[in-house]
């Protein structure tokens, strides 16, 4: 019983971070249809920024977090402006290739700047875990979960309930027509990419103090983020959220009760299984034909 | 013009009590009608009446909630859309549908798929029969392009055609598939009256080649001129059925569909 509870708690906490990664990517991959291979690098970037600001410059942790998020957005905006904007109208594979190139260059850049040795971000939270009966969880993890839930809710409202969110979605469904409605296409592209990037960087900055920061930390994370987005259905924020938690549960219980060697495979097995049953993802609709 | 509906002609297509529901929304309540072989039958009705949905059911793109579709006695609702096309039931799409990244010529050539026999092994071994077949098909493509009047655009990328030309190409592709029963979904949309007139000739010639036609169209001049029979759908139910002149005068149809001042509408 105790073990079940602990695994469940672990999964919930982990799921929050997965969901955060998922919604960042669902903006870019799900809504913009850019196969964003820099997502993992932006995550890494956020973690290094948190390290630089909080660890090296000794800034307040929460300040650093906010700044890392902003810097992530800025970097995202820069990538969109310099790399994606000139390719307007190119197909998904072409933009993907550019993003792969950017991802490779960014990872090498990170190693060049920071070296390969892991860095760790100081955390303002006590190392003593919060004990709830027979289970326990780190304070910093609860904080991450809290922030993640806030961001998830906020972005849900932004995308689904605001004029800006509607315009964002409209732009990527039909850029020309959106322009006819008075939408500033360029701004939407940049903004969406920047927001997605900001979320990735935030995730990195939040997780930096929990994990360690290395140039390759984004690789596996990026793959999982893609999986989460698909699990939830493209461009679907509640879907990505649930996808994140489902993946975490599968991993946690798979590793806990089946085999830890297959832990990282659990998510992928789950995805294959889900897509066999529901080819359009868990929470998306089928398209109309004719 | 051919005679009015002939009761004795055997139906090539029979739609029996087909119903389609989309999570709560009833697109087709219950629909039954038959299309006799060799005729032009029009399916008309207000927007959202369920015409395209009916096409989707007949051609296997949508599984109905209930009912059957019989093509020469075979139930189509169990078959995949490509199998249905394989039987000779070919449709066009209301939303323009072409192979945008290929040339106009290749679009039609691809449409001829059903008439080829070459399979993987034949292709890999480059059998003589395969090469001969390709030659034959290329000649046929040129003929079809001439038929719909797109010969001069053969080498253009299909995506670069104007809207009306893309619609014609859509029909050319369907023709290439050598239909027995051709389902046209608003083929004249985007054509002006003269073009429509010319197109009516095209449809009639297709019929004269022995192809049965089921037509969905809002251009009443075209419908009333070329149809042997008209089926009227409203709110997912058939409200009238009969030869054009009868339908034209049916008050229910006028009320639900034709409107009062028919003068503005084409024809």
């Amino acid at each position, binding site marked *: 019983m105790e073990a079940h509870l602990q695994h469940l708690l672990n999964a919930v906490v982990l799921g929050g971070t997965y969901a955060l990664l998922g919604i960042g990517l669902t903006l870019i991959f799900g809504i913009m249809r850019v196969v964003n291979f820099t997502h993992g690098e932006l995550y890494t970037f956020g973690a290094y920024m948190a390290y630089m600001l909080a660890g090296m410059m000794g800034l307040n942790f929460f300040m650093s977090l906010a700044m890392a998020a902003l810097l992530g957005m800025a970097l995202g905006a820069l990538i969109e402006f310099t790399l994606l904007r000139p390719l307007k109208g190119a197909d998904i594979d072409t933009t993907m290739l550019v993003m792969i190139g950017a991802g490779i260059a960014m990872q090498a850049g990170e190693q060049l700047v920071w070296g390969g040795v892991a860095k760790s971000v100081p955390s303002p939270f006590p190392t003593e875990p919060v004990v709830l009966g027979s289970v326990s969880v780190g304070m910093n993890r609860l904080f991450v979960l809290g922030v993640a839930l806030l961001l998830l809710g906020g972005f849900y409202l932004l995308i689904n309930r605001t004029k800006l969110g509607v315009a964002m979605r409209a732009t990527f469904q039909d850029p020309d027509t959106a322009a006819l409605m008075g939408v500033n296409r360029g701004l939407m592209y940049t903004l969406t990419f920047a927001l997605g990037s900001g979320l990735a960087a935030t995730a990195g900055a939040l997780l930096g103090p929990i994990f360690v920061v290395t140039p390759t930390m984004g*690789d596996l994370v990026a793959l999982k983020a*893609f999986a989460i987005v698909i699990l939830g259905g493209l461009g679907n924020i509640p879907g990505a959220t649930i996808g994140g938690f489902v993946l975490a549960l599968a991993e946690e219980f798979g590793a806990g009760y089946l*085999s830890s060697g297959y832990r990282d495979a659990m998510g992928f097995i789950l995805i294959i299984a889900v*897509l066999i049953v529901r080819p359009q993802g868990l929470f998306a609709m089928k398209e109309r034909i004719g | 013009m051919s005679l009015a509906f002939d009761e004795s002609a055997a139906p090539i297509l029979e739609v029996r009590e087909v119903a389609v529901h989309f999570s709560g929304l009833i697109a087709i309540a219950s629909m039954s009608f038959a299309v006799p072989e060799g005729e032009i039958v029009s399916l008309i009705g207000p927007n959202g009446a369920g015409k395209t949905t009916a096409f989707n059911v007949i051609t296997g793109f949508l599984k109905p909630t209930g009912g059957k579709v019989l093509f020469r006695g075979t139930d189509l609702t169990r078959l995949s859309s490509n199998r249905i096309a394989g039987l000779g039931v*070919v449709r066009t*799409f209301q939303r323009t*549908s072409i192979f945008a990244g290929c040339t106009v010529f*290749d679009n039609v050539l691809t449409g001829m798929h059903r008439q080829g026999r*070459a399979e993987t092994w034949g292709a890999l071994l480059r059998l003589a029969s395969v090469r001969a077949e390709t030659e034959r098909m290329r000649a046929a493509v040129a003929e079809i392009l001439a038929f719909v009047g797109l010969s001069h655009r053969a080498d253009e990328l299909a995506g670069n055609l104007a809207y009306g030309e893309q619609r014609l190409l859509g029909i050319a592709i369907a023709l290439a598939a050598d239909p027995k029963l051709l389902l046209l979904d608003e083929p004249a949309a985007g054509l002006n009256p003269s073009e429509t007139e010319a197109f009516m000739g095209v449809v009639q010639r297709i019929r004269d080649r022995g192809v049965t036609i089921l037509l969905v169209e809002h251009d009443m001049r075209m419908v009333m001129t070329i149809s042997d029979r008209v089926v009227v759908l409203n709110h997912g139910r058939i409200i009238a059925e009969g030869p054009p002149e009868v339908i034209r005068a049916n008050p229910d149809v006028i009320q639900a569909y034709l409107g009062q001042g028919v003068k503005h509408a084409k024809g």
Partner: protein
Amino acid sequence: MTTRLLPWLFVLVMAVGPLWLGDQYILYVLTSTGIFIIGAMSLNLLLGYTGQLSLGHIAFFGIGAYTSALLSLGFDLDLGGVEPFVLGPQPVWVAFLGGILVAALFGFLIGKLAFRVRGAYFVIVTISFAQVMRMVALNWVDLTEGPMALNNIPPLSVWLPWDGVLPLYRKEYNYLLVLAVAVVCFLVIQRLVQSRVGRALVALRENESLARSVGIDVTRYLVVATVIAAGMAGAAGGLYTHYIRIVDPDVFMFIYTVTMVIMVVTGGKGTLAGPIVGGLAFGILPEVLREVARPEVQWIIYGVAMIVVVFFLPQGIVPAVKNWFAGRRKRVAGTALGLRKETSA
């Protein structure tokens, strides 16, 4: 006529040139690049012609590599039955063919699955498939030795009437072998895509519902394409495993798929020569860069080079060159026409 002879001329140059140079290192680079070019060609069949991006393509390569390695080494498998299943070492060519077959079999399964999922979903299914394969290779230690790797894999061999069976340790032979396999794969793909089957694949890429509406059995052709592509990738994997002579779960690394994608897209997807041109460019580039800069900077240059290619040649290298030639021909024709007009006027 010249365009028909061009590929054969290219093959001739590739067959003779490097051997004549005799530089072992160049041979090594070309051989290992060639193996990946075969992988890229097979990926192109899916990505370029059916429009299905398989980002787990390396799985087929890895399956081919593992199967071929295991068959040539022999293995025993305890499946919980009474008797463990024991298979002695098989002749290398049997193993190699086995690798192709097993990879093709997995291709069949994935192709069937792709019937249900398309586009982005297909991408993720393939990524997931490759990841799962990697985990299996990693964790099924009894069979694959897991991370401890299968090593001492025998090289491929040829039978020569005057020498008997000759194991291919020498680079020259391996190089020629890879070249030969590449030529075969090229011919298969060429014939396929220029046929009715190829048009069906393109139709699937361009507009699936329209394709079905004219009677194209989309699933079937997708399966055919995936099986052939997977078999070729499996062959590349077999070549790899008998050439490098060790195989470990890292053979499923994502970066290898990425390498193939780079080769295909920079060269020009959906063109026959694309993967070859892109493959040579981006297979050799890292070796050139070795001399130029420190390791991290090499990667940065590599990444930037990809971006530059896309920016200047968004369709890829091969279509760009073709357009350039076509444009030149048109200009020449245009002036000729202009002249005639003048004289007639």
